[in-house]
């Protein structure tokens, strides 16, 4: 008799464990927060730390922070969860996906939540760096709160600079200076290049991001940041930028003639096989810890102006949840994007803090004093502009990247590649353009 009773009990206990049934106090509102990790290292751990700080600070809300892969996987998981009827409360999403999420009617307006508390959008936004505003606003309504942001940055090997008679305190600031420095820094053994002057990322989303910096530095617009319905991939500024990008590898032989991803780029630079690279400010922590040489950072060289695109992620809150969960999500979102938390996250990851007031905090000032390279990244912020964000951003971006790679690999001319990219992008955007008219 005992045995018969015991077995089902064990089975029930096991099943409860497997099902994740939790008994006990249910007064708390439990909400899910999805976050991707854009930089390596114990980012997931840092996030758990931050979230448990919040959970311990009060009793009403319990936030479950779930690591959800990269930005694309986070979007997939959120969309699958929404389709399945179990949306997360909030998520950290790539900053350039806000428009799409709004068009798909998946996220709630932050502005509405602010208004309910008699807060004004512009006052709320005034503390955030101006460059971040456009990627968070759709149809003149605020839908996202910037959380972790980055820009491209020029990293140089100071020892190589001194060796060839260049001044590392003044990194190249124009395309002419960049090419000149790259030519001086490149070392050859006969026909073979033994050290490259510069190396740039040439795969996945990194390619279009860094390329956008070149186009904007050349005075171009890249896309219509107000509507997200137009791209300017075949403009004169874009054509010139790609011609310059490609010439670095093929005409001047100062950049590897291969499709290098961001991991290879940093490996080239850290190993001294390349003297300059352009990577995210998010890579700074890695360079700081691993470069066995003296390095410097500088603004991405401008041809006619200084300009870089913003990258990174923002907090968005999902539709379709019960009112108390929505309220809990909003409370947590406000806490998470408050100046001290953003400062902590910036120091832990290498992203810059989206709130200007984060930099007035003492810990942050000490950090900048110890790491002057981090302050260069902050000084570049006034020149930052919105990141490519359109209807179906990922498809549009991929269309451009595929063509860019073909041009860089020498399979298409610059004009052909960009014309094809423009045509493909317009085809993808057409349904959205139609709805606007």
């Amino acid at each position, binding site marked *: 008799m005992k045995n018969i009773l015991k077995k089902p009990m064990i089975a029930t206990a096991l*099943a409860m464990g*497997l*099902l*994740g049934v939790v008994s006990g106090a249910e007064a708390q509102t439990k909400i*899910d927060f*999805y976050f991707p*990790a*854009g*930089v*390596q*290292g*114990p*980012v*997931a*751990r840092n996030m*758990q730390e931050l979230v448990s700080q919040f959970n311990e600070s009060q009793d009403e809300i319990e936030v*479950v*922070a*779930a*690591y*959800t*892969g*990269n930005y694309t*996987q986070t979007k*997939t*998981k959120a969309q*699958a*969860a929404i*389709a*399945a*009827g*179990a949306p*997360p409360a909030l998520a950290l999403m790539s900053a350039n996906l806000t428009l799409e999420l709004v068009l798909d009617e998946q996220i709630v307006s932050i502005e509405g939540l602010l208004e309910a508390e008699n807060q004004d959008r512009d006052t709320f936004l005034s503390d955030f760096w101006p460059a971040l505003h456009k990627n968070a606003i759709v149809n003149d309504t605020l839908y996202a709160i910037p959380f972790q942001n*980055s820009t491209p940055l020029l990293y140089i090997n100071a020892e190589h600079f001194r060796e060839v008679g260049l001044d590392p305190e003044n990194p190249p600031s124009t395309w002419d200076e960049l090419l000149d420095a790259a030519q001086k820094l490149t070392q050859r053994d006969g026909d073979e290049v033994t050290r490259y002057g510069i190396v740039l990322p040439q795969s*996945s*989303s*990194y390619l279009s991001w860094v390329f956008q910096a070149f186009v904007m530095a050349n005075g171009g617009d890249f896309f219509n940041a107000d509507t997200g319905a137009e791209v300017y991939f075949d403009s004169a500024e874009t054509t010139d930028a790609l011609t310059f990008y490609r010439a670095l590898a093929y005409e001047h032989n100062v950049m590897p003639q291969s499709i290098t991803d*961001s*991991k290879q*780029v*940093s*490996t*080239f*630079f*850290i*190993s*001294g*096989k390349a003297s300059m690279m352009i*990577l*995210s400010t*998010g*890579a700074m*922590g*890695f*360079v700081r*810890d*691993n*470069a066995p040489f003296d390095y410097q950072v500088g603004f991405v060289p401008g041809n006619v102006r200084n300009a870089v695109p913003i*990258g990174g992620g923002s907090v968005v809150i999902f539709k379709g949840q019960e009112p108390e969960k929505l309220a809990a999500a909003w409370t947590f979102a406000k806490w998470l994007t408050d100046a001290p938390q953003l400062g902590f996250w910036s120091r832990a990851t*290498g992203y810059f803090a989206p709130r200007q007031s984060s930099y007035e905090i003492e810990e942050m000032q000490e950090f900048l004093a110890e790491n002057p390279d981090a302050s260069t990244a902050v000084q570049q912020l006034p020149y930052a502009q919105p990141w490519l964000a359109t209807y179906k951003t990922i498809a549009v971006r991929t269309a451009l990247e595929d063509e860019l790679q073909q041009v860089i690999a020498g399979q298409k001319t610059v004009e052909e590649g960009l014309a094809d990219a423009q045509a493909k992008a317009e085809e993808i955007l057409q349904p959205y353009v139609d709805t606007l008219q």
Partner: protein
Amino acid sequence: MNRKPHIFSMLAMTLLCVVAFLWAAPFLWMFVASIRPEGFGGLRMASIWPDFSPTLDNFALAFKSANFALYYFNTFLMAAGILLVQMVTIMLAGYAFARLEFPFKNTIFYAFLIQLMLVPPILIVPNLSTLVMLHLNDSLLGVMAPYFASAFGVFLMRQSFKSIPKDFEDAAIIDGCSWYQLIWYVLLPLSRPTLVAFAIVSVVFHWNEFLWPLMVITSPEKQVLTVGLASFTLGAEGASEWGLIAAGTVLVSAPLLIVFVAFQRQFVNSFVSSGIK
């Protein structure tokens, strides 16, 4: 007289060694890189030649970055749970398709096989909806559920049962075996290589699976190894800490590698006799 074959076998041996080295290079690199001191320079990082100052720092950092003990437990529970249920379902379904007669048997069997043509990602949303309905979302049981029936396994078992001469069964039935005794005492022992081969394929697949657990599991305490590994090695915006990536990969793949090395002979025999590659 003996010389010529000797030279040939030496040549063949050398060639085999080269191929074996090429095959093993990624593993060797993984082990070497995992104990290489950090910041040793990217160039040396690519070398397969070990350094003279090995370090366990990368492993320490990996352990600091993720809760491996928990992930091992969850992954083991998931892979073993799936396998156990699969064993029962494929055995019974395989027997039905191989031996029993019922209407539309072949049509149903082919419908089963069509499952093999489906790419798993297209089933994410429908499967997830079912899980939400069953309240299995965010649970390990939810990760396992869609795999409980395996078209591949059913197909294998059916083929394996079919290749066993009917005489064995007739003899058993004459001796008074019921159908389940027949499966248990006669068919299964004769199909062991197939079962072992299927078990390997199943465990390796589920041990390494990333996307589906990522979709189902939300709570950190239910996370599995692959997702845990990605949480600190997949960052694309920063740069590459190859040592940390290598150490994490060693930790994730070690159990499977150890099991494989330990039972190598049995595994190879199973694959040879079951015809799976």
